[in-house]
């Protein structure tokens, strides 16, 4: 994994890139993207936004299928009450990963797929918003 700090229009972004083309896993400020580089488009985009990184994709889709590596997005705004999983361990689809306190309720967040829990991106007590990535599974 290579880390960069990229500055675009004065705003710094923490970028982590993993993989050897044409597909990469890119994490920009904690939000994971799956990126595939298409030669021609890259050239086009580069001339358009010379200073920025080239991202030809949208954030990962949290469906249970066709996600690898996948991110576990927060379904709603709230606070991480408890982390039930350990980084580096295997998880099965449906395994309890987090308890998220939201709307005065303890909501259970389970793994959407089976794989290795690569990273946990939040800490207990941390506030999260809808769509924030909580963990990465591959």
């Amino acid at each position: 994994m290579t880390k960069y700090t990229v500055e675009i229009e004065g705003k710094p972004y923490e970028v982590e890139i993993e993989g050897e083309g044409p597909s990469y896993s890119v994490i920009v400020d904690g939000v994971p993207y799956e990126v595939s580089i298409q030669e021609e488009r890259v050239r086009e985009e580069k001339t358009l936004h010379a200073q920025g990184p080239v991202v030809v994709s949208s954030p990962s889709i949290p469906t249970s299928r066709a996600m690898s590596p996948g991110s576990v997005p927060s379904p709603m705004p709230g606070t991480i009450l408890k982390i039930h999983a350990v980084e580096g361990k295997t998880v099965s689809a449906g395994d309890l990963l987090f308890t998220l306190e939201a709307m005065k309720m303890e909501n259970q967040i389970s793994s959407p797929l089976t794989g290795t829990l690569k990273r946990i991106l939040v800490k207990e007590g941390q506030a999260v918003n809808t769509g924030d990535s909580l963990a990465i599974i591959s």
Partner: protein
Amino acid sequence: MEEKLKELQEKLQESCLGGGLERIEQRHQKGKLTARERISVLLDEGSFEEIDMFISQGCHGLVADQREFLGDGVVTGCGTIDGRLVYVASQDFTIMGGSLGEMHARRIVYAQELALKNGVPFIQINDSGGARIQEGVASLEGYGEIFKFNTLASGVIPQISIILGPCAGGAVYSPAITDFVFMVDQVSHMFITGPDVIRTVTGEEVTFEQLGGAAAHSTRSGVAHFFDQTEKECLLKVRKLLEYLPSNNVEDPPEKEVTDSPFREDESLLTVVPEDPQKVFDVKDIICSVVDNGEFIEVHALFAGNLVVGFSRLNGKVVGIVANQPAVLAGCLDIDASDKGARFIRFCDAFNIPLVAIVDVPGFLPGVSQEHGGIIRHGAKMLFAYAEANVPKISLIVRKAYGGAYVCMCSKKLGTDLVLAWPQAEIAVMGPEGAVNVAHRREISAAENPEKVREEKVRQYRERFANPYVAARCGFVDAVIDPRKTRYHLIQAVKMLHRKREDRPRKKHGSIPL
């Protein structure tokens, strides 16, 4: 005469073979059924009567080199499901990719017309490459006429779409207008613009399955109401759904012989809702406990899981259930749940199906994306649908009923006929903690021990407001019931309301905030 009969036989056979044996064989190798085989799985054995078998583009005279196909790429007719008449149209992919031309459309529209005139369900099986390019604008007008009939028939007869192949471009709007859309994993694909166009225009890389597959439309877009693994399972589920639907809007839904005692009590209902108000539970445990034989056919099972909707029976009578699901998003109402609920409520209202709400709602989902996504507009649909509906409306409050979301789940004054509540129900403007923080902020912050004062205030609030008796005194709750006897009380409620008539001011139609 013998000659004539022979000619008839030949033509009938030609029509039945569609695009020919070779293409039929190709489909079978792909594990797909033909248009006629699908009809035979869907309908009662031997009940299918085909109409317009000889329809063909040839009626206008054929252009040189053009081959004539009798039937024009779609099979239509009527038959029965559990002995009840339905009309069907099943597109035949073996004839010009099931493409829709003028006569193809005319054949479908005639089946729609007959379904409407007879007041029976219309079921279409979509498997088509789209508009027939060779026929130009005439095929587009064909779609127009189909959409118009779908719309005219909406709320008069149930309309069901089964997508068993591609359904792209304008073609998607006929299913979209119909009441229920069924899709099969890896078989059905629906989209307005396909992956190729999307790649050219926006540069996004997406497969057919990711873009418009059954999984995408069942979980994300909400276009599909039912998801299945195989064509056969899907067709049989359509038969199952029809067990709950009346043939038209002046009939009552079909009753079924009752094999489940209306007096059956369930001890587990005492503990199904956790005592700790922060803990979640699965509302389907309550639904399956109280309805006849635990049978519940869930609509939109994979979409907006925070609201559960579907059909069941109570003492043989069909009811539509709308329930908050605390296990998903804490049971909050959000944009998707509101749309899902509103559509279901309006369907039930149109087809004389009493509504039962099971309420445990902490409120609306907070967030900028919800607000800017138009939760005001979408939540209003649900309120509108509930207030407008004049079928019997029953609510059962099992735990939290807070704020505007409580009203949205059909509060008394919005128009619920009978509100039942379990003893642990909390009906209030907001939850105890939130309310105390607002109402006693100064007092708490000024106290020597703020936490202790807060706890005391929360306890007082619970006692004063967060119980069913405050609302019951005002007549907003009609009965506080023993959870174990919920089935009995719901059955009684349906019985008490089964002759309900409630007239509305005459109008062309309301203006629901779409």
